[in-house]
C-alpha cells in the first residue's frame, strides 16, 4: 500500500489553506446547484500547484474564489494568517485574456495597480517597480507600447507583469496561456517559472494542458468531475528546480506523470471520495486489485447514474 496523505512538513510554512470549500448557485426552485463541494487543499509557501480537471468541473471557480472575485458559499480560505474576504493585492490574478486597458500603454497598465498597492512609495520607487516587473517578463523595450500594437503573447506578458508588480503572496493563473500558440505558450511558461524561482511566490495555475500541469507544478491537483467537484487525486511531481524543459521532457518519469494524469482524466475523474496523494516513486500507485476495484466502482456509479 502506498503512502496516503503525506504528513505536512512542519518546517515549511503553510501559505494557503482551503478547507471545506463549497460553491453553490441558487436556482429558482430552491434546489441549490452545488458546483464545488468540500474542496480541501493546503499549499506550502513557495509551492506551485497546478489544478487540472475536465472542463466545467469547477477549477476556475476554485481559483476565482481564492482570488476573491467569486463569493464563497461555505467553507473558508486562509491566506497567510488571514481568512480572505474579497479580492486583495496579496493574491494577484493573471486572467485568460490579457484584460489590459486598451487606452493605457504597458507601463501605465502595470502602474494602475502599483499606485494603489504602494501608496507610500515615491514616484521614482513606483516607477522602478513597474520597470522592473516589465523587464522581468522581457518587455523592457515595449514599455510605451499600447495593447493593440502588441501580439497576444506580449499582451499576456504585460498581464503577468501587472500581477507580479503587486508582489503578491499568491500568484493565481487562470488558464493564462489558453489562447496562445504553443511556441508562445512555452516561452511564457519559462517566464513564469523564472519569476517564481526568483520571487519565491506561491502560485496556482488552472490548466487543461497535461504537459503544462506536469512541467510547471510541484503538485498536480486533479479535480473530480462536477457537479459537487472536489479534489480527486494529488500527484507530487518529483523534478528538481530550476527545471530544464528538454531534460524534463526527456525524463521517463515525465511520461509516467503524464500517463497518471491522463488515466485520471479518462477513467477515475468521476469517482468521488477521499483524496489520494501520490508522491514520487509510487505514482501509478495502484495494485492490480485496487485497479480492478476502482473499475468496478466506476461501472457501478455509471449504472447508478443511469
Amino acid at each position, binding site marked *: 500500500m502506498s503512502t496516503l496523505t503525506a504528513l505536512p512538513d512542519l518546517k515549511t510554512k503553510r501559505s494557503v489553506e482551503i478547507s471545506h470549500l463549497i460553491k453553490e448557485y441558487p436556482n429558482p426552485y430552491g434546489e441549490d446547484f452545488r458546483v464545488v463541494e468540500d474542496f480541501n487543499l493546503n499549499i506550502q509557501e513557495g509551492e506551485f500547484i497546478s489544478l487540472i480537471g475536465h472542463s466545467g468541473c469547477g477549477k476556475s471557480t476554485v481559483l476565482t474564489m481564492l*482570488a*476573491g*472575485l467569486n463569493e464563497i458559499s461555505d467553507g473558508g480560505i486562509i491566506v497567510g494568517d488571514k481568512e480572505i474576504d*474579497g*479580492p*486583495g*493585492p496579496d*493574491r*494577484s*490574478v493573471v*486572467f485568460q*485574456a*490579457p*484584460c489590459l*486597458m*486598451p*487606452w*493605457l*500603454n504597458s507601463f501605465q497598465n502595470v502602474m*494602475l*495597480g502599483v*499606485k*494603489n*498597492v504602494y501608496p507610500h512609495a515615491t514616484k521614482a520607487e513606483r516607477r522602478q517597480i513597474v520597470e522592473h516587473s516589465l523587464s522581468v517578463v522581457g518587455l523592457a523595450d515595449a514599455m510605451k507600447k*499600447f495593447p*493593440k500594437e502588441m501580439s*497576444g503573447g506580449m499582451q499576456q506578458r504585460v498581464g503577468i507583469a*501587472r500581477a507580479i508588480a*503587486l508582489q503578491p503572496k499568491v500568484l493565481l493563473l487562470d488558464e493564462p496561456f489558453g*489562447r496562445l500558440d504553443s511556441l508562445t505558450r512555452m516561452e511564457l511558461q519559462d517566464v513564469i517559472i523564472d519569476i517564481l524561482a526568483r520571487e519565491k511566490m506561491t502560485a496556482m495555475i488552472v490548466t487543461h494542458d497535461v504537459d503544462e500541469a506536469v512541467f510547471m507544478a510541484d503538485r498536480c491537483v486533479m479535480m473530480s468531475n462536477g457537479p459537487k467537484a472536489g479534489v480527486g487525486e494529488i500527484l507530487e511531481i518529483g523534478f528538481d528546480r530550476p527545471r530544464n524543459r528538454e531534460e524534463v521532457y526527456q525524463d521517463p518519469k515525465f511520461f509516467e506523470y503524464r500517463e497518471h494524469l491522463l488515466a485520471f482524466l479518462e477513467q477515475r475523474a468521476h469517482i468521488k471520495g477521499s483524496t489520494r496523494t501520490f508522491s514520487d516513486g509510487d505514482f501509478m500507485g495502484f495494485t492490480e486489485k485496487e485497479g480492478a476495484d476502482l473499475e468496478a466502482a466506476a461501472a457501478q456509479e455509471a449504472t447508478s447514474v443511469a
Partner: protein
Amino acid sequence: MERHVHSAAVQSSFGRLEHQPGNTMADLPKDKIKYGLLKFIDLSGFKVFDPPIRLIFGEDPQKQIRDIAKFMLLPILFVGMCIWMWHIIGPNHKTKSGAVPGPWTVWNAYGESARFDEREQEKMEDFALEGAERIERISLVKKQLDEFESEAKKLQKISQETEEKGNEEQEKRLAPFKAQMESLTAKIKTAKAERKAAQVALAEKVTLGEAKPEEMIALFAKHSEANTADSEAKALIKAEMDEIRSDPPQEVQKAKLAANKVADEVQHFKKRLDILENSNKEVSKEKILTTIAEKKTELAAATDPKEIAKLSKSIAIAESNLAKADEKKLAPSATIFWQTKRSLATVFVGFMLAALIAIPVGIMCGLNKIVMACLTPIISIFRPVSPVVWLLIFQIIVGAFFLPDPAKHPLFVTLNNEYWFGWIKNPFAFLGTNPAMVFSACTVAMCALWPALVNTALGVSAIDKDHMNVARVLKLGFWQRLFKIVIPSSLPLVFAGLRISLGVGWMVLIAAEALSSSDGLGKFVWDEYQNGSSRSFANIILACFIVGIIGFFLDRIMIVLQKLVSFDDGSATA
C-alpha cells in the same frame, strides 16, 4: 476584446497583401507622406479622396481610376443632375411669392449677401478711421463714388431704353388681347342693354296682367347668370394680359438688375462718405470738443449766475458725451454671416450645457441601477417633448431671472461689454447676447441632452466585466475606477452620443431661433419669409444650404473626435 484583436489581425494581413509592392520602399519619405495623408483622410472620414491620393502616388493607377469613376465621378454626376433638374423644374413652379428660384438665383443671392456683409465691414471700418487715413479714405471714396455715379447714369439710361423697347414689345403682345377685351366689353354692353329692355318690357306686361311675376323672377335669375359669365370671360383675358405684364422681356429684367446693382453701390458710397465726413468717431469727438471750447470761452466771459450755471451744466454733459464717444461703435447689421456666427455660438453653448449635464448624469445612471430606475421615467417622458414647447417654457422660467430689465442683467452687461476690466477685449461682444439667445441655447441643451445621456449610460453599463475584475483585484478605489476604467472605456459611446446630440441641437436651434426671434440663421429664414421681397425666396434656400453644410461639418468634427477617443479601431491612441 478578442474580437477586436482578431479583426485587427485580419486588417493588417489584408494591408500587407495590398501594400506588398510598396513594402520595399516603405522608408521613402514619399511613402511616409502618402500614408500620412491616407491616415488623415481616414481619420477625418473623407474616404472618397483615398483613390485620388493613391493615384497621385502612382499606386495601381487602373484600380484607382476605376474607383474614382465609381465613387467620385458618378456621385458628382448625380448631384449635378439633381441641380440641373432643380434648374429646370424650379422656375416653372409659380408660387404667390414668385417662381421657385433656380440654382443660379440662389448663387447670386449668396453673392449679394457677401457684398452686403462687405459693405457693413467697410462702414464699420470707416467709422473708426482717424487722422490722415480718414482724409485719404475720403478722397478714395469720392473718386469711386464718381465712377459709380457716371456708370449708374449710363446703366439707368440703358435700362430706360430697354424698358421702353420692352414696353413696346409688350404692347405688341398685349394688342390682340386688348382688342379682344374691347370687343368683348362692347358686346357685353349691348347684351346688357338688351336684357334691361326685355326686363322693362316684361315688367310692363306683369303690371298689365299679361305675364306672371314668376317669369319676371326667372328673367332676373338669367340676367345675373349672364352677368357672372361675362365677368368670368373678362377675367380670363385680363389674367392673360397680367401674365404678359408681369413677365417683362429678359433683357429688360437684366438691364434693370444691372442698373439697380450699381445704384446700390452709389447709395453705399454716399453713405460711406457721410460716415467719413459727418458721423465718424473722430469727427464727432472733434465736434464735441469744439462746442466744449466755445462754451468754456463763453463761461469765462459770463457774469450772470444763471448763465454760468447753464453753461457749466452743458459743458459737463458734453464732457460725458465725449467719454461715451470713445466707446461708440457702429452697430453691426444682421448679415447672413453674422447670423451664422451667432447660430454657431448659440449651438455651442447649448451643446456644452447638454454635455455638462448629460455626461455626469449618464455616468451615474450607468453605474447605479437605482439611479437609472429613478431617472428612467423622467427621461422617457421628457425626451419626446417638442423643442417648441421647451422654448416657451424656458422663455417663462429662465426669463424670470432677467427681470425687470434684461439689458441691465449682469450676464448681458458682461457679455456685451466691449472691454473687460477696461482693457481685455471681449471676444463675444459682437454676438450681442440677449435673453432670446439664452432661451434658444437652453432649448438646444434640453433637446440635445437625451442622446448623450442615454449613450453615456449605455457605455458605462456595458463595461467589459474583465476590466471590472481587474479593477477589483487591483483594489482600485471608486474615483480611480471611474477615471481610469469606467470613463475611458465608455468614451467611444459617449462621443457617439454627443455626435447625435450635436446633430439634434443644430436642427432644433434653427426652429428655436425662428420662434424666439433670437438672431441667427433661424431668424434669418423667418425674417425673409415675412418680408417676402423678390430676393427672399432665394435667401431662404441659401440659408437652407448654409445650415446643411454647417451641420455636415459639425458632424465631421464629431466623427473625428469619436475616432480619436476610440481605442479599438482608430489610428490614434492617446
